[in-house]
């Protein structure tokens, strides 16, 4: 297809490099250097979507980040679908596939368009609030239509083939924005030797200079831009980041930059390259040179395709060699808007009229227009546009000097393009991100960055300094200030000579009057993306919404993905007028990160898939995998859950593991238990203060179980601590509690008892812990050690240093199964060796590996608690029936002593941990089931406590459970009932939680 709007020459596109792309299934041509938007305009594509609420056809309005309409779906395949892409910021590449996102069944013939009027009345301002409030019954009807009509794209249904990553950066000066102000700031900072990051969202540096024909030092501005960029590229201390949007400015000068590394190359990134990258930057100083967005004017039917902001017209002509129409009417309140008409005329297209709202405009560009013989209509405005899918003409009428009413007769002009300029809005978004409230400036007719606590400087149009020479100068000053602040001195920078353009005063006007009142005039759009009209804002004000924050939420102004970059100021002006206030009195809204949408991929980076969360492995992990273990996540650890043999169900495997351990010998990898080495002369006393039980008399070579409570007296961890030397202990903790316990010890040592001489060090990863358990464990171990394992020499709760399978080891005779057990600790580098040796010798004993589930069953048979399963932060040792583990006579108090003595903690009817035997031994109660004493009580039934642990015990050939029952310790033999979700009620008898070997003989053999 021909590019009917493409100019013969000019622009920064490469006409020798043609590209093809697809839009809504049709093929089009463009050139290297085009954006998707410029290529669409070159091809005469007028409609890029349908509006959110009224389903009106919409065209491209702007040329940059502020574009509200041309938000497209990209992607040649399902997996590469990308929603929410602004065509104005997407560089064209060969084979690009795009489609409009709003328009059902197509943007050209939209069924919703025919019911747009109905949709409008169906969705007045505050639609959602009103609908949710009343009439509630209609919501379903509305919803199905809204869902279909709304939305700006969709996410892919398949995994994204590309990778995205994140990188951390540090610099002295971050310069945001590559226009004249940013260029001079970056150059100044770079020459001083400062570490500079220079970021701009476009594909090349230059900013506004890329969109105009202005000169610097009498030569095209691009020559100066190229020289500066070339110089910057030569510095090691400078990082240039084109195609990189500084999208968030956070506290302490932490900023995020969204770099699109390969989005301009192809649908999928080249092999080995990240598609996008999120830079996390710590900058000592930040220079914001983010420029300004031109404001369109608010007038009737100002959304008909062909209506654009004036500067976008210039950009398409000068930068992309595209004149987006043939007959232009320009409406402006200021001198800068004239440039669009001048460029249009110079491109050989017809300027129908320049409609200036000012009575008597003066200035260089006004003169230039007169010299070119352009039709200048002053003191007037375009009050209405004709056309539906494209502008066909305009109504022009004289207006009063204050701009509030139409004062004369209307004349009609034929045109296909309407450019409007209501002045400029500084891009203050980033400065707002950190909470700085912008300040209205009457001279600039816009908000400027407010006071900030950040180390932030601003330069150029963000300050309302719109001339190139001022921008260059402010950039230089910001650069000088920044480098001085970081202790460097700048070398000289000569600024280029910019053209001086005399401008007349602008008129403060946002909303163009119509013959009819706003509420009856054709729609005058303020926010294109959310379809907010001037009439809608007036309705909101009439209904009592006086704060702009409320107006915004009521109308949805600024709630689109463009955050109202074009419309917010106009909306505030309309609200201010309706409320008879000034704009600063009406207030402003604060912008939040992100400046433009950031893909989820860039936010996730590489923290996905196998790298989503660390998996911690023990030294024997590979063996477990080879043995076919099923794994369970315990904290970040992967622990073997059970080891099924081929064809075995989980229950079969557990039964086999449980029986083998009680009948012969089983082995558990207990390496994940937290281990803390404690040294110092006060170590023993410290233990006495953090554990509830006594430690004063634990002899060297002995081990002891301990309970740890919080200040409230509630159990939070437990474990065995062994006395290695008089001043040297090894504490074990639960797997999940390891880090928390170490922090707890350090906290108390550092804040409460710093005088105590004790040090704590984690040795969790250092030791592999191999636990063999069962009646044959002694025989098995005897084959691998010379240590005298007799009960006389090496009794229960002793530990010995010895050698196991040729490896120096500490062996602890402690037991979590109630069997004769040995916990073999060897340096983790030898864990696998010893594990394999145990299996070499264990075959004749049917040595059976077991995981966490069998461990849970075996300990439950013995009534041993698991902190975190049988405790939940609300139970103290007496609730657990573990008063034996609380010392009453320690000379110094201990953590939790006072807490568990509180009135509420000594009630007799507290929930207490008991054993529970179901009347039907085959029924295994679900954990979490709530017990009641009277199953026939009316709902809500008084609940007396829940099941914490419940298993099938192969050794006892019945189910066993532990759970809380109010006053349960005094209710032995009584019945509790568990009504389940399926309607059945399970009866159980309260019993001791020690189901097996109540005298503890097995572990003492």
């Amino acid at each position: 297809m021909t590019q009917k709007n493409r100019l013969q020459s000019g622009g920064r596109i490469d006409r020798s490099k043609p590209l093809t792309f697809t839009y809504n299934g049709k093929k089009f041509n463009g050139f290297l250097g085009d954006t998707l938007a410029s290529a669409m305009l070159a091809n005469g594509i007028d409609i890029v979507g349908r509006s959110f609420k009224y389903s009106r056809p919409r065209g491209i309005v702007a040329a940059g980040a502020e574009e509200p309409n041309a938000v497209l779906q990209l992607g040649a395949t399902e997996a590469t679908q990308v929603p929410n892409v602004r065509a104005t910021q997407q560089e064209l590449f060969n084979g690009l596939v795009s489609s409009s996102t709003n328009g059902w069944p197509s943007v050209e013939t939209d069924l919703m368009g025919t019911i747009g009027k109905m949709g409008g009345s169906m969705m007045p301002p505050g639609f959602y609030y009103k609908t949710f409030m009343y009439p509630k019954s209609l919501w379903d009807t509305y919803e199905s239509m809204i869902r279909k009509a709304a939305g700006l794209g969709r996410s892919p249904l398949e995994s994204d083939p590309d990778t995205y990553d994140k990188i951390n950066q540090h610099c002295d000066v971050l310069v945001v924005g590559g226009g004249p102000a940013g260029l001079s700031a970056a150059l100044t900072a770079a020459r001083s030797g400062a570490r500079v990051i220079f970021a701009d969202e476009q594909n090349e540096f230059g900013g506004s200079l890329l969109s105009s024909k202005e000169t610097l030092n009498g030569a095209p501005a691009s020559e100066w831009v190229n020289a500066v960029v070339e110089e910057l590229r030569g510095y090691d201390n400078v990082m240039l980041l084109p195609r990189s949007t500084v999208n968030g400015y956070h506290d302490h000068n932490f900023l995020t930059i969204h770099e699109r590394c390969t989005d301009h190359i192809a649908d999928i990134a080249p092999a080995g390259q990240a598609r996008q990258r999120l830079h996390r930057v710590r900058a000592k100083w930040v220079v914001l040179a983010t420029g300004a967005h031109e404001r369109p004017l608010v007038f009737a039917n100002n959304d008909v395709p062909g209506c654009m902001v004036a500067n976008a017209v210039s950009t398409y002509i000068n930068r992309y060699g595209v004149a987006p129409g043939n007959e232009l009417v320009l409406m402006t309140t200021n001198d800068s808007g004239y440039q669009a008409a001048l460029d249009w005329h110079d491109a050989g297209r017809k300027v129908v009229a320049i409609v200036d709202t000012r009575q008597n405009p003066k200035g260089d560009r006004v003169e230039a227009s007169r010299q070119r013989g352009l039709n200048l209509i002053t003191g007037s405005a375009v009050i209405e546009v004709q056309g539906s899918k494209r502008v066909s003409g305009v109504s022009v009428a004289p207006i009063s000097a204050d701009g509030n009413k139409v004062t004369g007769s209307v004349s009609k002009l034929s045109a296909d393009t309407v450019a409007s300029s209501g002045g400029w809005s500084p891009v203050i978004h980033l400065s707002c991100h950190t909470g700085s409230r912008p300040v209205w400036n009457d001279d600039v007719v816009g908000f400027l960055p407010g006071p900030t606590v950040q180390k932030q400087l601003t330069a150029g149009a963000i300050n309302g300094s719109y001339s190139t020479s001022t921008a260059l100068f402010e950039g230089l000053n910001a650069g000088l200030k920044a480098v001085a602040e970081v202790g460097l001195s700048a070398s000289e920078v000569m600024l280029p000579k910019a053209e001086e353009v005399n401008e007349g005063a602008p008129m403060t006007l946002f909303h163009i009057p119509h013959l009819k009142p706003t509420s009856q005039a054709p729609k005058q759009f303020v926010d294109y993306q959310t379809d907010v009209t001037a009439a809608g804002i007036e309705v909101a004000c009439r209904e009592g919404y006086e704060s702009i924050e409320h107006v915004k939420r009521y109308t949805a102004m600024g709630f689109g993905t463009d955050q109202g970059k074009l419309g917010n100021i106009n909306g505030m002006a309309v609200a201010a007028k309706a409320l008879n206030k000034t704009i600063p009195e009406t207030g402003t809204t604060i912008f939040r990160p992100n400046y433009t949408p950031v893909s989820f991929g860039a936010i996730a980076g590489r923290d996905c898939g196998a790298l989503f969360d660390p998996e911690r492995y023990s030294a024997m992990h590979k063996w477990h995998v080879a043995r076919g273990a099923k794994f369970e996540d315990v904290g970040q650890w992967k622990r073997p859950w059970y080891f099924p043999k081929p064809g075995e169900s989980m229950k079969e495997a557990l039964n086999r593991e449980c029986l083998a351990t009680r009948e012969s010998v089983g082995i558990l990898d207990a390496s994940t238990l937290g281990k803390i080495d404690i040294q110092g002369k006060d170590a023993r006393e410290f233990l006495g203060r953090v554990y509830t039980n006594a430690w004063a008399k634990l002899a060297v070579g002995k081990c002891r179980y301990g309970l740890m409570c919080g200040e409230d007296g509630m159990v939070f961890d437990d474990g065995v601590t062994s006395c290695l030397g008089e001043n040297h202990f090894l504490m074990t903790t639960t797997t999940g509690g390891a880090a928390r316990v170490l922090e707890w010890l350090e906290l108390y040592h550092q804040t409460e008892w710093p005088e105590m001489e004790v040090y704590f060090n984690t040795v969790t990863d250092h030791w592999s812990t191999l636990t063999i358990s069962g009646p044959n464990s002694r025989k098995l171990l005897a084959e691998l050690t010379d240590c005298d394992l007799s009960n006389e020499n090496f009794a229960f709760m002793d530990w010995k240093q010895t050698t196991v399978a040729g490896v120096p080891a500490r062996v602890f005779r402690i037991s979590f199964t109630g069997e004769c057990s040995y916990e073999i600790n060897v340096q983790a580098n030898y864990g696998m060796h010893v594990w394999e040796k145990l299996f070499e010798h264990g075959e004749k004993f049917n040595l059976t590996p077991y995981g966490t589930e069998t461990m849970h069953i075996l300990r439950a048979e013995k009534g041993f608690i698991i902190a975190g399963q049988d405790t939940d932060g609300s139970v103290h040792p007496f609730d657990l029936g573990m008063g034996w583990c609380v010392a009453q006579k320690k000379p110094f108090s201990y953590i939790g002593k006072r807490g568990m003595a509180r009135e509420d903690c000594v009630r007799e009817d507290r929930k207490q941990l008991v054993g529970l035997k179901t009347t039907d031994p085959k029924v295994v109660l679900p954990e979490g089931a709530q017990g009641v004493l009277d199953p026939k009580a009316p709902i809500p039934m008084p609940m007396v406590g829940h099941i914490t642990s419940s298993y099938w015990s192969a050794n006892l050939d019945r189910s066993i459970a532990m759970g809380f029952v109010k006053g349960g310790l005094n209710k032995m033999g009584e019945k509790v009932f568990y009504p389940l979700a399926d309607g059945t009620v399970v009866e159980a008898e309260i019993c001791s939680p020690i189901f097996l070997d109540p005298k503890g003989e097995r572990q003492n053999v």
Partner: protein
Amino acid sequence: MSDLTVAVPEEKVASTKAVVMNQVAGPEVRAESPLYHADLDSLAKQGPRKGGVRLRENKLLGHLTLRCNPNNADQLAAVERVLGMALPLQPLTSVEKGDVSIRWMSPDEWLIIVPGLKAFDVETRFRDEMDGHYSLVNGSGGSTVLELSGDNVVDMLKKSTPIDLHPSEFPVGKVVSTVFAKSTAVIRRTGEKQFELVIRRSFSDYLWLWIQDASREFGLVVDA
């Protein structure tokens, strides 16, 4: 506790009444470093020889954590007698002499790395030479050392840690204990384009995966 040597016959009990144990097995026993299963030796033989990042596991070293009072001149002197160099008291610095290196970890904590077979000897000498309140803990099985180098090593590290690695902020010899991906590492600069990471055993597979991934665009060379 009149006769401690009977209770724990093979251990040495110093005046600090902490035990020291030779934890190293004989050469006939296979020792598996934390990255043993990654089979780095094969990758070194068969993998690419060119790339922007080079990695080597410096394995099975002796890792000793010393905690003591930096204001105790006697203890500082004892360290010099044992290690032949003074403890680095300046935060975030390290010292190195021969095959022994010391990293400042916190105001009262240092990580000493020695050859694996020397660990017991160093521990024993500490207990002989150093009095007062301190702790010395052998953590050799719990961590490993990765040597990372190459033209892109800084780029790879920047993806992994928020620390500023510019030479002006992170000169040779500087050491930090910090965030690395979603785990932690002790990072020390050993040359302009050369770093050393001390990582924890249980996180080493995750970090090995991470480093391979972060190096992909530059090419990763594994050295034996």
